[in-house]
């Protein structure tokens, strides 16, 4: 028994158990809705394993989720909550598109894509900088400001897509012109684009920077104890700002990967919910940048599986949000290492 107990107490086992529990509760809710959970899960499973293309969709979806998760991870290191991934993704896509417009197909593909990526990171960072500036100068809580900035980013996108960037030939749903081949990320396999590798590299870089650089160490001190950071002579305001900007840049890059790698144009409603999913992905693994690869992949599979739930079972596509939320709640409450429950 003690062996069994020791196994059950292992963080990885507890996390796995939490995910299974979430699957069971979701099944119960499907029953309550009058749906057949077995065929529901089969529809989800089929829609991610049907063929290599479907599996590729999951792989591709992992990259914006992962970058949105990393956008949470870095500020969290400094004790900050970035709830603005949603808006920073959108702004990244917008500034990348703006860069493509400025280059106007005059530059070779490699340069075009690098410039677009840099523009996306600057855009995302600038959007986060608004929250950082409000925090630094007025003491506005960054949770609230990044949350509100999400709505403004979405409206900005709508303004551009319905306005100056509207493709005059688009009928029905307004959208921008299609990105040219030189503005699209190269495909490695099926629908899987280079951005997937970029996202994986970003996760490794974030891990290295957090754990192996002086800046990462300082962020950790700041996140652990503000007073200690101040006593050590760190410029705490600048550190916090830099962490938020880095987070914004990561999310911005994620926006470019999705728009240039998958969408191929801008439209209203692009990447809705991706930023929030990234938050779930980050918290499922307690902000560990490498483990976030796995959580982003799992959430991507759930999201893509949701298409099957919609098409085959006729259930609303947003239903899978339940499963995602339950997974995080189970992990927050029961997963990972045992924590003192009475702390709050």
């Amino acid at each position, binding site marked *: 028994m003690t062996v069994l107990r020791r196994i059950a107490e292992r963080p990885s086992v507890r996390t796995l158990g939490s995910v299974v529990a979430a699957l069971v509760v979701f099944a119960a*809710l499907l029953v309550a809705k009058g749906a057949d959970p077995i065929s529901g899960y089969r529809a989800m499973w089929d829609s991610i394993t049907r063929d290599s293309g479907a599996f590729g969709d999951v792989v591709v979806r992992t990259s914006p989720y992962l970058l949105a998760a990393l956008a949470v991870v870095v500020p969290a290191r400094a*004790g900050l909550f970035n709830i603005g991934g949603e808006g920073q993704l959108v702004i990244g896509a917008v500034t990348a598109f703006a860069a493509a417009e400025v280059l106007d197909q005059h530059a070779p593909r490699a340069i075009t894509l690098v410039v677009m990526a840099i523009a996306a990171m600057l855009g995302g960072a600038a959007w986060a900088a608004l929250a950082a500036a409000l925090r630094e100068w007025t003491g506005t809580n960054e949770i609230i400001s990044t949350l*509100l900035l999400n709505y403004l980013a979405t409206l900005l996108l709508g303004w551009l897509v319905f306005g100056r960037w509207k493709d005059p030939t688009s009928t029905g749903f307004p959208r921008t012109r299609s990105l040219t081949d030189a503005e699209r990320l190269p495909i490695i396999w099926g629908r899987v684009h280079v951005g997937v590798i970029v996202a994986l590299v970003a996760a490794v870089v974030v891990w290295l920077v957090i754990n192996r650089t002086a800046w990462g160490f300082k962020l950790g001190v700041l996140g652990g104890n503000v007073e200690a950071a101040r006593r050590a002579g760190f410029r705490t305001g600048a550190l916090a700002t830099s962490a938020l900007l880095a987070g914004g840049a990561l999310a911005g890059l994620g926006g470019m990967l999705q728009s240039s790698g998958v969408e191929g144009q801008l439209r209203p409603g692009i990447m809705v919910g991706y930023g929030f999913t990234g938050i779930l992905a980050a918290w499922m693994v307690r902000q560990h940048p490498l483990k976030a690869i796995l959580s982003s992949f799992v959430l991507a599979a759930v999201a893509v599986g949701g298409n099957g739930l919609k098409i085959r079972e006729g*259930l*609303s596509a947003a239903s899978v949000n339940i*499963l*995602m939320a339950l997974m*995080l*709640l189970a992990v927050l409450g029961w997963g990972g290492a045992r924590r003192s429950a009475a702390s*709050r």
Partner: protein
Amino acid sequence: MIEAVLTGAVRGGTSIVFAGVGETIAERSGVTNLGTEGSMLCGALTAYAVGIETGSPWLGAIAGIAAGAILALLHAALVLWRGANQVATGLAITFLGIGATSLFGQDYVSQGVEPFTPWAIPGLSDIPLLGSVLFDHDPLTYLSFTIAPLAWWFLFRSATGLKIRAAGERPIVLSSMGIDHRPVRWLAVAIGGGLAGLGGAQLSTAFARTWSENMVAGRGFIAVALVIFAAWNPLLIVLGAYLFSGAVAFELELQARGTDVSIFLLDAIPYVVVLAVLALMSRRRTHAAPESLASVFDAAA
């Protein structure tokens, strides 16, 4: 124009008043609940569905309160029993609310509910300007006029309110009196969720009179933001809620009158107003925060 904006401010702000007052009570006990948005959604759908099944919007509103409170109790369970991080839990709760109302709301999308209808108060509603702004509303809006003073009395004059505030400031004081602060927090979070659910009910059965997916559209998050603006004072929540929805009514009025400015820029006005007001107020407001809330903003937890 002024009349339309002021009337719109009250009509559209009612749901935010309920949710904001509720969140104020929860935060006064030391618990932030970003699941307020989710509680509003659950309240909106449950009230709508029960309203349709029973034909009574009143039963719907009561069911909406229950639905909002139940979701908030899940938040309380994770945060207070399992020691989970409040911000992450709250966001997950909202996600859960979005998904659950999307799943169970599918069948109700194009159905009509017996709505709350406006009760024009005889005499008072004939007063120029003031009459239509204040005295020609649905019953839940009249209820919202009383909720902030009631909550103020509850927090600052009742014994339970004192315990809630003590739990939020110095739980150790309660311990020294032999009172466990955790049941107090459970209660405050449940009240907060119930009021958010009532706000949602007003939204679906009195304001919009329809159910559509994700119809709360950020009002719950606005309510949470307004708590800081209001310096954790339920009376000031009303001001903030009317400011936000007044800005919404203002830009809708501009749209209706036809203007060259893009609707997307007009739609941004309410959010910019809230951000700007928060930025102007934040320095002063932070000192008013219940002391235990400080631990909420600890991402390392």
